[in-house]
C-alpha cells in the first residue's frame, strides 16, 4: 500500500524544507552553548550554567538581547548592500544543507523516506559552490559600511577564504578518485562498501581539508580578520542587533556545514564504526542519523578545542601557509594518490 499522494508530494517536502532550515539553526544554538561551556571548562571555570538547565537557554538569552538592540545603519552606508549582506551570508550557509545527507533512507509503509532534501549527482560541487556565495556577503558588508576598518577586514577575509578554497578542492579530488562520484550519498555508500573510511585511507587529505575548513570559517587560529584584540575589527563592525546576529549565526552554520562535509567525505557519514568486527555488530542497530550527529559533535568540539588552545596567525603568515604549504602539499598529495590509485 503506497502512501497518500498528498503526503508524499506535499507534506513530506514541506517538512523537509522546514527541517533543512531548522536543523542548522538548532545546531547553531547547540554550538553557541557548547562553545561557551567548553572554552570555560578548558579555562578552569564553568561557563554559563544558570540560564536554564546547565545554561542551555543562554543562546536564547543572547538572541533575545540582540533582538532588542537598536539597528544602527551608518549615515554614509550603502543601504541596499548593507541590508543585503547578512542575508546573503546566512542564506548561502543554510542553502547548502539541502544536499547534505543525514542518514540512510528507510522504508515506512512502502514509501522510502530519504534523510536529505535533494540528491544530486553533483551534490558535492553544489554544496561547495553554494557555501562560496557567502564571500559576496562579506565583501558587500565591508564595502557598504563605508568605513576603512570594515573594508580592510572584509578584504582580508575574502583573500583568506579564496586562498583556502584551493586546498579544499584539491583534497576533495583525492576522495573522488576513490569514490568515483561526487554525489554525497554515493561517497558514503562507497565507504560502506570499501569497509574503510577515507579519513584513514587518505590522512593527509583529511588534515589539509580540516585546516582549510577552519580557515574557511574564519575560526581560530585563523581569525585575525575578526579578532577582538586587533586593530581592524572585521567586516561586521558596523552591524548591530539582528543583522549582527545573522553574521554570527551564519558563521556557526558554516562551521556545522564544514563539519558535515568532513564527516561525510572522510568519516563515513552515517556509518557506524568497525563494520568488520562481528562482536560489535550491535552498533549497527543504532540509527545512522545518530552516528552522524555524534561525529559532527566531535568535530564541532574540535573546533572549540582548537580555538581555546592556539594563538592567532598574523594575516601574512596565514596566506603564506595556504600558498607555500597547503597548496603544494595538497597538489603533491593529489598526484601521489592518483598514481597510487591507478598503479595499485
Amino acid at each position, binding site marked *: 500500500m503506497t502512501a497518500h499522494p498528498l503526503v508524499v508530494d506535499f507534506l513530506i517536502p514541506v517538512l523537509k524544507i522546514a527541517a533543512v532550515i531548522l536543523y542548522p539553526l538548532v545546531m547553531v544554538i547547540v554550538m553557541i552553548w557548547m562553545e561557551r561551556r567548553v*572554552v570555560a571548562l*578548558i*579555562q*578552569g*571555570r564553568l561557563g554559563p550554567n544558570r540560564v536554564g538547565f546547565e545554561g542551555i537557554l543562554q543562546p536564547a538569552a543572547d538572541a533575545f538581547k540582540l533582538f532588542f538592540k537598536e539597528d544602527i545603519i551608518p549615515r554614509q552606508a550603502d543601504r541596499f548592500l548593507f541590508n543585503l549582506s547578512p542575508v546573503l551570508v546566512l542564506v548561502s550557509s543554510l542553502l547548502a544543507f539541502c544536499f547534505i545527507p543525514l542518514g540512510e533512507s528507510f522504508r515506512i509503509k512502502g514509501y522510502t523516506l530519504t534523510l536529505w532534501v535533494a540528491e544530486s549527482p553533483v551534490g558535492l560541487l553544489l554544496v561547495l559552490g553554494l557555501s562560496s556565495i557567502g564571500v559576496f556577503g562579506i565583501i558587500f558588508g565591508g564595502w557598504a559600511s563605508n568605513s*576603512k576598518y570594515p*573594508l580592510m577586514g572584509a578584504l582580508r577575509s575574502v583573500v583568506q577564504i579564496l586562498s583556502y578554497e584551493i586546498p579544499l578542492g584539491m583534497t576533495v579530488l583525492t576522495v573522488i578518485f576513490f569514490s568515483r562520484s561526487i554525489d554525497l550519498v554515493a561517497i558514503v555508500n562507497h565507504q560502506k562498501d570499501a569497509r574503510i573510511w577515507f579519513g584513514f585511507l587518505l590522512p593527509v587529505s583529511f588534515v589539509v581539508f580540516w585546516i582549510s575548513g577552519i580557515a574557511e570559517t574564519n575560526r*581560530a*587560529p585563523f*581569525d*585575525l580578520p575578526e*579578532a*577582538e*584584540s*586587533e*586593530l581592524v575589527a572585521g567586516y561586521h563592525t558596523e552591524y548591530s542587533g539582528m543583522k549582527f546576529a545573522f553574521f554570527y549565526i551564519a558563521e556557526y552554520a558554516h562551521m556545522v556545514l564544514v563539519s558535515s562535509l568532513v564527516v561525510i567525505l572522510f568519516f563515513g557519514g552515517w556509518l557506524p564504526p568497525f563494520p568488520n568486527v562481528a562482536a560489535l555488530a550491535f552498533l549497527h542497530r543504532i540509527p545512522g542519523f545518530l552516528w552522524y550527529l555524534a561525529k559532527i559533535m566531535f568535530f564541532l568540539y574540535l573546533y572549540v578545542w582548537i*580555538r*581555546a*588552545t*592556539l*594563538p*592567532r*596567525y*598574523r*594575516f*601574512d*603568515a596565514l596566506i603564506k601557509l595556504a600558498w607555500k604549504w597547503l597548496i603544494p602539499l595538497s597538489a603533491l598529495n593529489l598526484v601521489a594518490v592518483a598514481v597510487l590509485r591507478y598503479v595499485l
Partner: protein
Amino acid sequence: MAFKTIDLNMGPQHPSTHGVLRLRLAVDNELVLRVEPVLGYLHRGMEKLWESQTYVQAVPLTDRLDYLASLSNNLAYILAVEKLMGLEVPKRAQYIRVILAELQRLASHLAWLGFMANDIGAMSVLLYGFEAREGVLDVFEAYSGGRLTVHGMRIGGVPFDLDERVIGLVRRALDEIPRKVADIEGLLSQNRIWLHRTEGIGVLSAADAVAYGVTGPALRASGVAWDIRRDVPYSSYGDFDFAVPVFGHGDVYDRYLVRVEEIRQSLRIAGQALENLPPGDFRARVPRVLKIPPGEIFHSIEAPKGELGFYIRSDGSDKPERVKMRSPSFLNLQALELMCKENLFSDVVGILGSLDVVLGEVDK
C-alpha cells in the same frame, strides 16, 4: 579610497593597550611608520599629592602606581625614605621584604603572561596565569588583608610577622606555580604560531635600549646584563643565590623568555629566603611624627617592570618637599616607536604587550 598613509588611532579604550593608553599610528599599507603614545589619561597628580602627605601617609598611595605590583612600589619608596633617614632595618624584616617582593614579581609576571598571550590569541593562558597568580594573592590577603593594593610594607620594616598560616600559603604557592608555568610553556614556548608571532618582532638593540633608558626584562632581553638586585644589592639581596637571565636578540620572544625565566628565579629566591629566615624584629622603631632633616636621595630597585626609582628631597618637616618617581614603564614606552618601525601593525599589539606597560605607573 587611498591606503597610502593612514592615521590610525588605538584609542584609550582598547582591549589590548593594558590601561588607558592612546597610540596614534601612521601606517603605510601594513608597515608602521610612526607611533606616538598619548599619555595622561590616568594622571592623578601623585607627585603633587605626596608633597602634602607625610612620609607614612604616602605609602598607601604608592600601591596605586603600578597596581599589578604594588609591593614593589611600596618597597622602592620606603627604601628611599629609609636611606634618607639613615635607618637600619632589622635582618628579619629585610628577608620578609624579599619574600614579599619576589612573590609580587611572580604575580606581576604571571599577569603579564596572561595578558600577552590573550592579545596574541591564546585565550586559555590568561586564565591559567591568573589561576597561578591567585596563589600569590592568597598569601598577600592572609598577610595584610589586601590582594591588589597590598600596603604590605612600612617604614622601618613590615607590618606583621610571618605566621604559620602565611608560611603555609607561601609554600603552597611555591609548589603550584612551577606546574602551572610548565603548562603555559607547553602551550607557548615551542608553539609554531607563538614563535611566528614573536620571533624577530620588535627588535631593540642593546645600544638603543641603553640610549632610551629601557630597563628591566626588556633591557636584559636585548643583551645588557644589568639587574639592580645583583649589581647594586638592596634589602639583603646579596645573601641569595640566583641567576639573571640575559638573551641577545631583543625581540618579543626573548622578552617572553626572560620573564618566564625570572619567574623560576623568583621562586628560587623566595624559597631561599623562607628557609633561612633569621630571628629578630620585623619592624624598627620609628618616631610617631617622622621628621627627616634636609637632604635629598635617589634610590631605585629592580621592580618587575624595570628600574623603579624615587627621588625625595626633604626640608626638615614631616612632609617631603619634592618627590619624583622614575617609572620604568614610562621610559620603556619611549622605545615603542623604535621597536614598531618596519613591523606590521598587527604586531604593535604584541610589541606593546612585551614591554609590560602599566598605565598607573606611566601617568602617576
